[in-house]
């Protein structure tokens, strides 16, 4: 008798991928359930104000369509973050093109982030949000991936397409900025 999915011990991502390849659609449900909220939080932290659910959905569709290229050198979540980040950059480029001659600046990201004002209620969250607004887009990505998602510097470097050393520098600069901001308010 085969155990039900609920009673089955925690399977690794790789095991679930192999099960999905073998035709078990429940494996896909478990993979999406395991990683979808982290992807949504990363998108929100990176400044996406709307269409986060579509973004997460596109990320999974693209990832499952190219699962053969996933070798397991990094974790599946890191790989998913990388795909999602590329999709976010594509979105921003498309938005930039639609705005034609108006260049995108740091303040644009701040205003996108500002759309979450009504959703962040507590004072501590408001302070954190403002401190993250003071970071550059890359610093914010590195800092949130490190602090909120707990990724290693090597994984962060893969996601943001940088080096491990550069990720460390971004992290140090970010925490100094956030620390000073939180001390001043």
């Amino acid at each position: 008798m085969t155990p039900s999915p609920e009673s089955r011990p925690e399977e690794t991502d790789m095991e679930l991928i192999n099960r999905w390849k073998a035709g078990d659609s429940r494996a896909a449900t478990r993979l999406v359930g395991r990683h979808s909220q982290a992807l949504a939080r990363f998108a929100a932290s990176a400044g996406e104000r709307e269409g986060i659910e579509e973004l997460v959905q596109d990320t999974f569709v693209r990832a499952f369509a190219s699962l053969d290229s996933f070798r397991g050198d990094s974790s599946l979540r890191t790989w998913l973050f990388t795909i999602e980040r590329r999709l976010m950059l594509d979105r921003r480029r498309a938005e930039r093109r639609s705005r034609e001659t108006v260049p995108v600046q740091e303040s644009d990201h701040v205003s996108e982030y500002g759309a979450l004002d009504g959703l962040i209620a507590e004072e501590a969250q408001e302070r954190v949000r403002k401190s993250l607004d003071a970071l550059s887009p890359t610093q914010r990505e590195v800092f949130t991936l490190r602090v909120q998602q707990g990724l290693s510097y090597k994984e962060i470097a893969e996601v943001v397409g940088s080096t491990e050393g550069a990720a460390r520098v971004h992290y140090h600069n970010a925490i100094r900025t956030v620390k000073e901001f939180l001390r001043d308010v």
Partner: protein
Amino acid sequence: MYNCIDTEIQEMLPDLLHGSLDGHERQRVEAHLATCESCREDLDVIRTVKGAAVFAPAIDVDRVVRQIPPYRMIVPGVEQPTRTRIVSWLVAAAVVLAVVGGGSVLISKQLKTTPAPVASTPPESVKVANATKTSNNSQSPTVTKIESLAPAHPRALALASDIDGLSDGNLVRLMNDMNRFDALPAAEPEPVIAVDSGDSL
């Protein structure tokens, strides 16, 4: 304000909150935190940011899964040519074109720069040619013996380094060619004309 200079410890602080340090690393970080105020402040900042995760909408897992296409294994044989492969073929074609074109130019240049058989041609061949002419076209047995080595093309006559390798027919053609060159010295000696100086009177 004091800032800690132990960057290794600072970089491990998020791992401490995520519980991803091993026992030894955890003890090391905690021992450092006991004496370092700057790192304790950093840890507070990290804890605050981690706890204040921004709002993110709940994802409908079933809806996402419905959009995922069924798995299709990639068959290597039916791969379409990628852009990279096309570029590689273009580069290879360009290299072949450059080699063939460059070779053609070099050959044509070489042919142009080959010294024409004028007055400055090696005197040895001229001497031999003249000597052959003065011997009334006699067929030397030595020349006949190596006839098979003779160059087939008339132009090659001028390029041949060894006159002994020429057949009789080619020798005749060579001599005829040389007779057309103005700068060549006349093969026949000038006739001697007796001049009467009047001394005999």
